Structure formats: structure tokens, C-alpha cells
């Protein structure tokens, strides 16, 4: 991005980025800003409503909900980024290759991907985690194993479109190698759309992680994680709704910020050519 175009960063994009940055910072600084130890059990003060000592109340073991949410950022955000990175790592080369070379491999690959995409992500992910055994690492593995296909499909469609352009043809005629064409002419062109897609997907991944942890398949207790906190809340939220309200709000805030960033980036993309 050129600096002189920075004024185009509208307030929406700025707000989204600030929220996301704030969330990451809060996760990073959790040991210093959290009012309590997220694992400290205190049965005398269980299921309390918000107060000055416990701003978001306490859960069924008397643990501070605010502290747990802050520490939960570390798990949710870092696993979401790991997943995003790994899916890109797998998806991008495959998409670049199959989209630019075409032919039989591409055909077979797409048929395979289209078939797997017929099965909803969550079903496959749950089955994979179920067979491997619940846990954070297995969950990350399962989500990556399921998600990369949609990346290939999306990025491949971008590559296909670019390869129909005349400038690719002239680049070929000028004697550029295939690899050089991809790096010099294709990658810069698909950078922004991928960023837009990735920002939106970051939110979806967080929802995915939270959903699996909610089912008890992701991070295991007593690790503070948003979805797992909601799982803990299942038996208690009817008595004290705060055990579910605040972790849920944290998830919604994160996902909304991702959507906002993605949408505003998408609007920008045409101006940055």
C-alpha cells in the first residue's frame, strides 16, 4: 500500500483494525491486566454477578470470567492465526499451480475438492477430531485438513481469471518463465483479494474453534478458551447468565471486527491498483 493513499483508510476499516489490535494486545498483556489468576478456584465466591472485584462476574468454580476471557484470547487468536497460516501455506501453492497449468491434474483435483466441499466443514472436522481424540492440537490439525480445499477453490478462480488476461500472454511471449510470471504478475494481483478472504475467514475460524471447544473437542479444561467457557456454562447459565454472556460477546466482537476489516478492505481494493 502506498502511504499517500492512507487517507483512504476509512473510519470503518480503522475501527475494525483498532478492535482487532486491541484484542491481540489484551491477550498479549493478559498477565499484567487480568485482575485475577484465570485458574484460581474460589468456591466461596462462585457464580457471582459483575462487581468491582469481578468486573464480569465469576463462573461455577469462582474463577474470574474477565481474566479467563483475556487469557482465552491467547488460545483462540493464536490457534486461529496458526490455522489461517497453515491453510494458506497448503492452499496457495496448489491453487497457483493447478490454476495456471490446468490439465488433467487440475481437473482431478477440482473434482476431488468439489466433492469434499459437499460435506459441511463441521461434520468432517468433528469426525476427524473424534477419531484422533479431543485436544487443541488435534483440533487445529482437523480444521486445517478440512479448510484448505476452500482456499484452493477461491485462489484458483482468481488465478484462472488472471491467466486469461492479455498481459500474461505477452509476458509469456517475452520469454518469462512460468514461475516468474506467477511471482511477478499473478501474486501481486491476487494479494488483496486473498487478504480480504483471509480476514473474513479469520472470523469463521474463530467461530469454528469456539464451536468445537464448546462441544468439548478443542482445548480441554481448565484451559481458559471462549468456546470451552461456554461449554462450562451449559449447566449454570440458567442461574447466572453472566457465565455465558461475556464469553459469547467476546466471540461476537472478534468476528464482527474481522468482517468489518474484510468488507472495508474489499471496498478499498479497487482503488489500490
Amino acid at each position, binding site marked *: 500500500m502506498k502511504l499517500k493513499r492512507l487517507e483512504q483508510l476509512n473510519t470503518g476499516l480503522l475501527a475494525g483494525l483498532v478492535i482487532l489490535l486491541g484484542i491481540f494486545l489484551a491477550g498479549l498483556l493478559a498477565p499484567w491486566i487480568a485482575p485475577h489468576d484465570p485458574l484460581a478456584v474460589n468456591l466461596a465466591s462462585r457464580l457471582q454477578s459483575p462487581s468491582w472485584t469481578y468486573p464480569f462476574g465469576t463462573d461455577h468454580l469462582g474463577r474470574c470470567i474477565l481474566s479467563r476471557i483475556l487469557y482465552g484470547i491467547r488460545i483462540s487468536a493464536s490457534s486461529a492465526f496458526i490455522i489461517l497460516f497453515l491453510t494458506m501455506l497448503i492452499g496457495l501453492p496448489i491453487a497457483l499451480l493447478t490454476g495456471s497449468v490446468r490439465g488433467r491434474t487440475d481437473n482431478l483435483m477440482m473434482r476431488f475438492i468439489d466433492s469434499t466441499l459437499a460435506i459441511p466443514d*463441521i*461434520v468432517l472436522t468433528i469426525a476427524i477430531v473424534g477419531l484422533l481424540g479431543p485436544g487443541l492440537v488435534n483440533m487445529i490439525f482437523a480444521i486445517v485438513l478440512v479448510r484448505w480445499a476452500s482456499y484452493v477453490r477461491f485462489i484458483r478462480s482468481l488465478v484462472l481469471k488472471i491467466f486469461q488476461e492479455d498481459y500474461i500472454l505477452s509476458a509469456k511471449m517475452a520469454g518469462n518463465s512460468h514461475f516468474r510470471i506467477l511471482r511477478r504478475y499473478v501474486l501481486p494481483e491476487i494479494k488483496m483479494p486473498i487478504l480480504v478472504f483471509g480476514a473474513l475467514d479469520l472470523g469463521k475460524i474463530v467461530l469454528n474453534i469456539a464451536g468445537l471447544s464448546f462441544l468439548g473437542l478443542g482445548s480441554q479444561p481448565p484451559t481458559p478458551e471462549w468456546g470451552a467457557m461456554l461449554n462450562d456454562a451449559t449447566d449454570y447459565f440458567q442461574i447466572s447468565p453472566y457465565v455465558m454472556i461475556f464469553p459469547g460477546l467476546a466471540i*461476537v466482537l472478534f468476528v464482527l471486527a474481522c468482517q468489518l476489516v474484510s468488507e472495508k478492505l474489499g471496498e478499498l481494493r479497487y482503488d489500490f491498483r
Partner: protein
Amino acid sequence: MLKFLLERLLQLVLVVFCVATLTFILVRISPGDPATIMLKANEVPASSEAIHALRSELGLTNSISGQYIEWLQQIFTGEWGESFVSQKPVINELFVRLPATLELALAGLAIMLAVTFVMGISTAVYENGLADKIGRVLALLGSAIPTFWLGFLCIYLFSVSLGWLPSIGRGSFENLILPATTLGLGLGTVYARVLRAHMLELLQQPFVKASRARGLSKKRILVFQILKQALLPIVTMVGTSFAFMLGGSIIVESIFSWPGLGQYVIESINMRDYPVIQGYVVFAAILFVGIHMLVDFIYLLIDPRLRV
């Protein structure tokens, strides 16, 4: 038409093959010996003789390739093994729970469609009005709120605070309302935006100008002329979202203790009941590819242009 069907059938076989292979690999690399787990599930003391006897009975002492071929044969002949826990054939256990899940998914779909149409049409008619602005916010929230949290909020509001509706179990119509709403609401708000955008796009056509010139109101044109054209993409949406409903029902079922496939598979995961989990994936794969085939087929019937 025959070519289409054959191609789709081939795709089904391919998917089942891939899923079966995947589950086979996963079970082999997952920690824990199936024989030991099975004995534990039946509360039999896992002595080494008992484990060995069961291992050879289950065919676990055969070579890996032999096991793999046998597993593929089993999958394609419908012999999916027996549940470690209940000792009943997996396929029967799955079919017993299918109706509950289908009921929930269909109800979720109905709620989704209702929301899509009411919100989509009203936001298109009052473009940039109050309803439109509310619709935009709802659609944003609809895709950001996790289903399980929405379920909790619904239970807290309608069961705990107001006491209007039951929060768990299956049976009467009242039991269905909250789970179906939880399942369908979010996607409904998102699709409402799609329908709105599509209707407004169709509004650019020349015949609209002609109708306006003859004195028809924009509202009338939207509802009586545009809507019909906007329905076609909705048909595809219904197919894909039905698959989405079936997938999403796993989480909703576990919130509302709905006795369907999703709750069963989560239970089985907690009991380490491998045959059930394996059977479930293959079952789901067949179900979803089947739905896709059906949608494509319906599309072919509705839109004659595609038949050429």
C-alpha cells in the same frame, strides 16, 4: 441426463472412497488400541489374553493392507460393524436417529426461509429505510453470532425468564421451536441480504421502467414481478443450506438435548466408540452428496436452459 446421473454416481463413489480411506488412516494413527477400548467400554477387565483374543476377532492382527481392503468391502456392502457400546449394528443406530435430525433440519430450513422472505422483501421494498438499516445490522450479527450462544440466549430468554417454551428434549411442537430458530435464524438474515440485493438488481431491467410508466408502484412491481424471477437462485440456496442445517444441527442438538445424529456422534466420541464415528462420517458423506445430486437434478428440471 443419463450422463449426468452416471457422473454424479461416480462422484458419490469417489467421495465415499475418500472418506473411508481417511477414517481408516485416522483410526490407525490415533492413540489407543480399539480392542482395549472396546473391553473397557463393556467394563470387562482388559487382561492381555482377552485383548489378544478380541484383536484377532476384530481382524486387527491381519496386515494393514488386508485390513484396508476388508474395511472398503465392509463400507460398500453396508456392513459397518457394531457399536462398541450398544453392540448393535452401527447402520441401524444411525437410521434410528436420522428422523430426529431431519425433523430439526427441515424446521430450521422453514425458519430460515421465512426470515429470508420477510426480511428480504421488506428491506428491498423499503430500500435505505429503517427496515433496511435494521436488516443490515441483523445480517452482520447473524453471521457473527455463534449458534450455540444464540441457543443459550434463546433458552435464557424464552425458557428461564419468560417460561414460554421448553428448553430440552424432543416431542411436542413447542420443543421444536427454540432449536429450529437457533438453527435457522442466522442464515436467514444473511440470505435476506442476498435476496434483497438480487431483487434490487433485477429492478434495473427495462420492463420495470415500462411498468413504472404505466403507473405501477415500486412495491407492486417488486412483489408481483421481481420476486418470481428472484426465486431461482433461492432454490440452489435451499439445497446448500439444507446441508448446512444438517451440519449445524450437531451443535444445536447438543445444546437442546435433541436425540439426533449429532448428539449421538458427540456421545460416541466421548465413549471412544470408533465404529460409530466412522460410520457417521460415511453416512454423512452419502447424505450430503445425495442432497447435492438432488439439488442439481431439481435445478435441471426447473431451468430448461441448463438441459441443452
